């Protein structure tokens, strides 16, 4: 599903954001990428979306060879996966319904299909009643659910979330995590970048830890802190 082979990312200003990352996420997995700010989590997500290009190494996502693909191919890569961001990134001029439908319109889907699919996904995230409301009239949790609905509208095999609960209170965060788990149970691979300890610890999922651009840990059913060695805390 996702494969990084010897990936290094250097920014033009000299910062090395990722160093020799080797990583494989299989179909149907649920994985956390953790680390403090500046650890390279966001860069890793940006590389998956081809918002940035890797300096070295190979990246494969959903059957696309991300490191070698041309600019014209990028939209198709992005359509093949669902993305959720910390700041929701909804279109302010469109209603909830239109925001979700937009995800399908860009694929030139049939209007009939759109009319069928959008209410279904809105039902899945529990927002059927807010279809005709604008994002600014929604709470943070609701906005994130709209974003989730939009990410799911094209039935992607992979869902990538960059700090999806970063702007939400604990309770709403749990709602979102529950939704992500449910989506995962339906067969979608889920990759979540986060630095929220409580969530990671409680979920007992695969944990990939980054520290200053280096992958320091990759555990199945991991927790946020690694206290295995001499009481020192590693992130």
């Amino acid at each position: 599903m996702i494969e990084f082979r010897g990936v290094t990312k250097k920014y033009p200003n000299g910062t090395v954001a990722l160093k020799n990352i080797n990583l494989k996420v299989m179909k149907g997995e649920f994985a956390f990428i953790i680390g403090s700010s500046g650890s390279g989590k966001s860069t890793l997500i940006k590389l998956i979306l081809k918002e940035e290009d890797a300096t070295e190494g190979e990246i494969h996502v959903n059957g696309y060879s991300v490191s070698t693909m041309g600019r014209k191919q990028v939209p198709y890569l992005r359509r093949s996966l669902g993305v959720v961001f910390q700041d929701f990134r909804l279109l302010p001029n469109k209603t909830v319904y239109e925001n979700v439908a937009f995800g399908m319109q860009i694929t030139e889907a049939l209007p009939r299909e759109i009319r069928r699919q959008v209410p279904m996904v809105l039902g899945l995230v529990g927002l059927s009643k807010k279809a005709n409301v604008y994002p600014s009239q929604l709470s943070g949790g609701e906005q994130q659910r709209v974003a989730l609905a939009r990410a799911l509208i094209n039935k992607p095999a992979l869902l990538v979330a960059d700090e999806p609960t970063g702007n939400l209170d604990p309770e709403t965060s749990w709602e979102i995590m529950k939704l992500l788990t449910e989506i995962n149970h339906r067969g979608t691979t889920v990759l979540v970048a986060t630095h929220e300890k409580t969530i990671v610890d409680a979920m007992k999922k695969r944990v990939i830890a980054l520290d200053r651009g280096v992958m320091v840990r990759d555990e199945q059913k991991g927790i946020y802190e690694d206290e295995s060695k001499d009481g020192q805390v590693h992130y």
Partner: protein
Amino acid sequence: MKVRTVRYIIKEGLKNAYRNKLMSFASIAIVTASLIMFGAFYLFTVIVNYNTQAFKDKLEMEVFLKPELDDAQVDRIEESIKANGKIGEYKKVTKEEAYEKAKQLLGDDGKVLEGIDASFLPVSFKIKLKDPQDSKEVVEQFKNMSGVENVAYSQKTVELFSKVSYWVRVISTVLISVLLIVSMFIISNTIKLTVFARRKEIGIMKYIGATDGFIRWPFVVEGVIIGIIGAVLAFVVTGNAYHALEVRFNADVLNMGADLFTFVKFRDIGLQLIGIYCLAGIFIGAVGSLISIRKYLRV
């Protein structure tokens, strides 16, 4: 691109133009203002060209013969006019016709002609040259011909007119070009502002996998709509102003009995004007949008 996508793009362009009313309004105002100025120069050039041409077409010289010539002598001169290859057409003005014309010209003062008969007036020939360039030569020929009293020819006026119209053309071409460049710049900047205000939106669309075309075309449609509205407004303003001026100016000038300089009839130029306006508006709107959005598509 599928039909439903085209429909989406047009709908989206219209919606956006409406949702961003303030910016659309600003852009329309600028397009309208630029086109009005552009149109004013354009119309001015057209009028000057038209009049120069009309003047050249009307241009004739009149050869006055000595009044005392008898018919045979007059005929001889007429023969030599006929034989002259440089002369296109000519018209003989008899003594009687000259008398009538003089009476007409004098109007109420025509009484002074009472008691005088036509014989004191000269026979004359109105001559049109095939090529006005030959005028000097032909004038000389007639002046040297025996029996010719005088040759009237408005050579100086023609030259002046030609020169003025040449410079009007040069100056208005330069001004129109400068104006077009300046308004393109202003308009693309205004659209840049709209695009800048919506750069986040563009970024989001790119993130969820919209192609550049899918994002770009609604903006272009929006620009074209703004261009067309601007063109129509500019046409309404310029058209009405021109029509009012034309009617008044022509009425005033024709009242004086002169037809040296006239406005081109609005109905002869209106269609051309709206056509040029729409083309310019569409061009400015579309190109302005394309230029402005390019930068923000690189996400």
